[in-house]
């Protein structure tokens, strides 16, 4: 148990020391938030609601990115450099190593969410009830699991270049079609239709519901669960195939 906690701590330290993480998951979303709520006139009717809505969008955007990219690319890197092989011959159980990665990553997500929420309060004086803050943060944390699983799936790739290229494309495509950059309603109809079947929109949708005083839609929960299972099964299948050699 102490071994596991220690390992989680190490994983967190490593993520925080990664300049890409700090830039993509903390700085970029906050800059985005600043631009789309302070600089650009979005012409929305209810500016206060938009400030809240977009705060959720970028928190989701940040956590989704770090789940897919920070985790996935790191896993590929560690395997391609032989580190994963080395860990296997130490007494550290592979399961602890994996769990530490997930827990460490989630702890970092909690930190990201708090930082971004504070940015919202400072920049726009966003105000919500305590329950709304906590439940939206909890949603963003828990509903990130399908994306962690997607990160693990990215992690089965052989080369770091491929993994980083592909995960970047997936990430940006999901962000746009999921209405995380601009509201779904202003996107072209076809993209809206595609986006409504992809996980990112439902990830955002749950948080957007919570700040409007609604419980996340059942459809969103169902679709995210299906994606979680799909990504898990796929990565287990691929991993088995790779290990069969």
């Amino acid at each position, binding site marked *: 148990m*102490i*071994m596991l906690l*220690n*390992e989680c701590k*190490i994983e967190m*330290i*490593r993520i925080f*020391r*990664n300049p890409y993480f700090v830039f993509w998951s903390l700085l970029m979303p906050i800059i985005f938030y600043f631009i789309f709520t302070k600089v650009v006139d979005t012409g929305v009717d209810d500016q206060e609601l938009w400030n809240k809505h977009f705060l959720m969008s970028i928190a989701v955007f940040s956590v989704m990115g770090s789940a897919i990219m920070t985790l996935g690319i790191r896993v590929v*890197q*560690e395997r391609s*450099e*032989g*580190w994963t*092989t*080395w860990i*296997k*011959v*130490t*007494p*550290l*159980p592979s399961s602890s190593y994996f769990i530490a990665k997930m827990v460490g990553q989630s702890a970092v997500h909690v930190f990201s969410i708090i930082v971004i929420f504070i940015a919202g309060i400072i920049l726009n004086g966003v105000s919500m009830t305590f329950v709304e803050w906590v439940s939206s943060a909890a949603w963003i944390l828990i509903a990130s699991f399908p994306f962690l699983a997607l990160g693990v799936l990215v992690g089965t790739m052989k080369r770091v270049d491929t993994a980083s290229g592909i995960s970047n494309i997936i990430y940006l495509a999901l962000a746009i079609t999921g209405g995380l950059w601009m509201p779904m309603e202003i996107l072209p109809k076809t993209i809206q239709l595609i986006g409504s079947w992809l996980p990112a929109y439902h990830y955002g949708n749950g948080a957007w519901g919570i700040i409007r005083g609604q419980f996340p839609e059942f459809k969103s929960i169902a679709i995210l669960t299906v994606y979680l299972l799909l990504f898990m099964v796929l990565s287990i299948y691929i991993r088995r195939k790779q290990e069969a*050699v």
Partner: protein
Amino acid sequence: METIVEINNLTKEFKGKRAVEDVSFSIKPGEVVAILGPNGAGKSTAILMMLGLLHPTSGTVSLFNQKPQEQKVRERIGVMLQQVSIMDALKVKELLALFRSYYPTPLSMEEMIRLTGMQGSELNRRTDKLSGGQKRRVSFALAMAGNPDLVFFDEPTVGMDSTARKQFWEKVRQHANAGKTVLFSTHYLQEADDVATRILLFNEGKLVADGSPASIKQRLLKKAVSFKMDGHFPKEQFLAMEHISDVSEEKGRIVIQTEDTDRVLSSLFSIEMPISDIAIDKGRLEDAFEQLTVEQGVS
């Protein structure tokens, strides 16, 4: 006495090609064993199977009479693989501490630091900022973190300069002197001869010889000069000459065993013996082992 390593009929096939074929041996505590062979002889494949990282096609491996994947085994072994990679974004000190935490009876932090050969502010450097040589030393310290009873080094000195090599083997010797078992692979005959107490000679996936460095070396290096000679065979005179290890008479020919055929020939000519029909026999240094780097160059 406990058997540390027990390998029985180990075979590994990759797509129908046999990388390791029917290898059996066992290792006792305190032995320093070199797996010697040219590139592609199956040395790494054998080590990966011993570590439980590759599944054998057939045959069995046991370390400390258990499967290599067992937690109890992992606690007693230390490993340095060919590909040296160290977890990034951590300070040297943090990484050493992390590895110590994996083992029930780790080396002291001071001891680990001594093995890295680093001091002061160097220990606070991030692992990704280290030079190649420093990374090697850190990975060596990590391999020793659990004060292992058995260590595996796969081609440990590739890319090291001669000073680094010397320091490395010095530390390994200290570990072996404490009664620990060491197993390493190399394609340098000299290295195996200098360091090991026993050599397992691999070629084309097979274990072709198993013995003391002296016997293996002789087998690999022995050459012979043979000739016909008229009259009396002055055996004593030959044996007194330099570079000649043995002389015998076989099927009417005199056979001189030597490591240096050129010198022997020049001595023979200089004393003007009545000899004829000279032949040089490269002996048992089979073609495959010409690929073995006999002397380690200063790289």
